[in-house]
């Protein structure tokens, strides 16, 4: 009895949770007169996607977003690996203070320091560029923390053995530590990609032309037209911009969930 009730409750909540997405699918694939009117006989169409695609330079936005996400992730992986290696396996003066200073970023994220970071970008003369969107996020405290934890679990003996064979510090890092940390890298990458694909406030501040604008900022075109919003087109645009993440998520659901779990355990 309780079991049935529990299942029913869980399903009710599950359906409620998926409802907004289900609605978006409905509206996006049907003509706009059906966006508020549900009928099984409603004809399917891809016209909304076509309209949305032509309403803004989405091809460019896709390229921008991918470039931005790739650049940030590549920089994060390199920088965080090096720093984490230093914290995990080196003794140097000021290490603990430096680590505490790194952790500050877990609380004070770049998202909050928009005013000062904007003026820094302006002084550097790189406003409205992919680099400007990425720079504040490249040294990620979260990444350093996560990789340091992983590196600390690598047995010292492996490190020593490689050094005896004459490997340099960077070679040891590359040949011993990095291969053992692959699951952490995957986890971190998924978290980073979905964060930056979805990021909005900083990109909208720092970009002002189509040159560097990512998808999330491009999407705003639809909600900012106050008169006559065509909801079917909005839904189509919404699905279109989230599609790569959504498809990746559906394909790699298990890895996604496990990655977020792994990334969350500190």
């Amino acid at each position, binding site marked *: 009895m309780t079991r049935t009730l529990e299942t029913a409750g869980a399903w009710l909540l599950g359906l409620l*949770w998926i409802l907004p997405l289900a609605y978006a699918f409905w509206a996006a694939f049907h003509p706009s007169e059906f966006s508020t009117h549900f009928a099984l006989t409603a004809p399917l169409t891809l016209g909304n996607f076509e309209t949305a695609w032509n309403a803004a330079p989405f091809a460019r936005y896709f390229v921008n977003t991918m470039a931005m996400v790739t650049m940030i992730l590549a920089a994060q992986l390199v920088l965080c690996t090096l720093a984490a290696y*230093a914290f995990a396996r080196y003794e140097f003066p000021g290490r603990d203070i430096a680590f505490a200073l790194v952790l*500050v970023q877990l609380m004070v994220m770049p998202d909050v320091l928009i005013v*000062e970071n904007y003026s820094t970008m302006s002084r550097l003369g790189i406003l409205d560029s992919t680099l400007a969107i990425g720079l504040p996020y490249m040294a990620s405290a979260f990444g350093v923390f996560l990789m340091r934890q992983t590196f600390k679990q690598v047995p010292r003996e492996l490190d020593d053995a490689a050094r005896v064979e004459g490997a340099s510090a960077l070679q040891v890092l590359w040949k011993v530590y990095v291969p053992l940390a692959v699951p952490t890298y995957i986890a971190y990458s998924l978290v980073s990609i979905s964060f930056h694909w979805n990021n909005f406030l900083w990109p909208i501040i720092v970009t002002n032309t189509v040159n560097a604008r990512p998808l999330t900022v491009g999407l705003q075109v639809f909600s900012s037209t106050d008169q006559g919003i065509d909801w079917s087109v909005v839904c189509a645009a919404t699905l279109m911009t989230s599609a790569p993440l959504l498809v990746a998520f559906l394909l790699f659901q298990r890895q996604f969930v496990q990655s977020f779990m792994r990334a969350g355990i500190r």
Partner: protein
Amino acid sequence: MNRTASQVHGWLLLLPAAVLLAAFTHYPAVATLWHSFFSTPKPARPAAFIGLENYRTLFDDPVFWQSLSNNFWFALGTIPVSIGLALLMAVWVNGKLRGRAFLRLAFFTPTVLPMIAVANIWLFFYTPQYGLLEQITGAFGLPNHNWLGSQSTALGCLMVVAVWKEAGFFMIFYLAALQSVSPTLYEAARIEGAGPWTMFRRITFPLLMPTTLFVLVNAMINSFRLVDHIVVMTRGGPDNATSLLLYYIYEVGFKFWDSSYAAALTMVLLLILAAAAVVQFGFLERRIHYR
């Protein structure tokens, strides 16, 4: 390898990340404080030292107080609900319910979607007259209501979106913690004749305490950090009823271009985050004692 070389190597490895962190986290935090004591530079008039003038303005600024109290209510409304739901979801998904693969998918999907995109969908739900919510309430014969357009309901509507977006994310942390709870504890409890509710209250919940605190701090930071949906759904309106602190900073800094006042506002936000850090720090300490 000798000691000095090792020390130099350590710093060299750290250097690239340290430079970027200093430039985009530490420097701006300090510069925010510094600039909050100056006036905003204008083409004809360079920045001048004005002491606490910005803070005095802030103290007398009703919009600031409203944003702060909105943010407070927003946090108070979203954090407990999303944590409670996350725990419930995790227990359900972790159990042997029918179709839990679907449930996990349903709960977690909002997390991977862009806030800006889902805000668009929710915007439609709340649309006056023909929005989904209006159609449902209309079917029950309730009068029309402009959900996002009236001061009494707009913030609540945004809170619903935030809970919907975040609960699945927090669920993951609970799920991870639940899977590490030893089944022997439950077996022992069952032998003692404990019911499911007692087991939850006496075993699951206490063991999840560190996770709860971790999620709590994250939820708190997020409630002061995430304002994307406001830009799409209400732009702080009606009459500042949905303006959160960071959104107000964004408006002051990038719509009114008053950067020094925005700096003073940012200082308030930084203080709040520092308070969260203290909570986190205290909690980390305690967690070490647990082990």
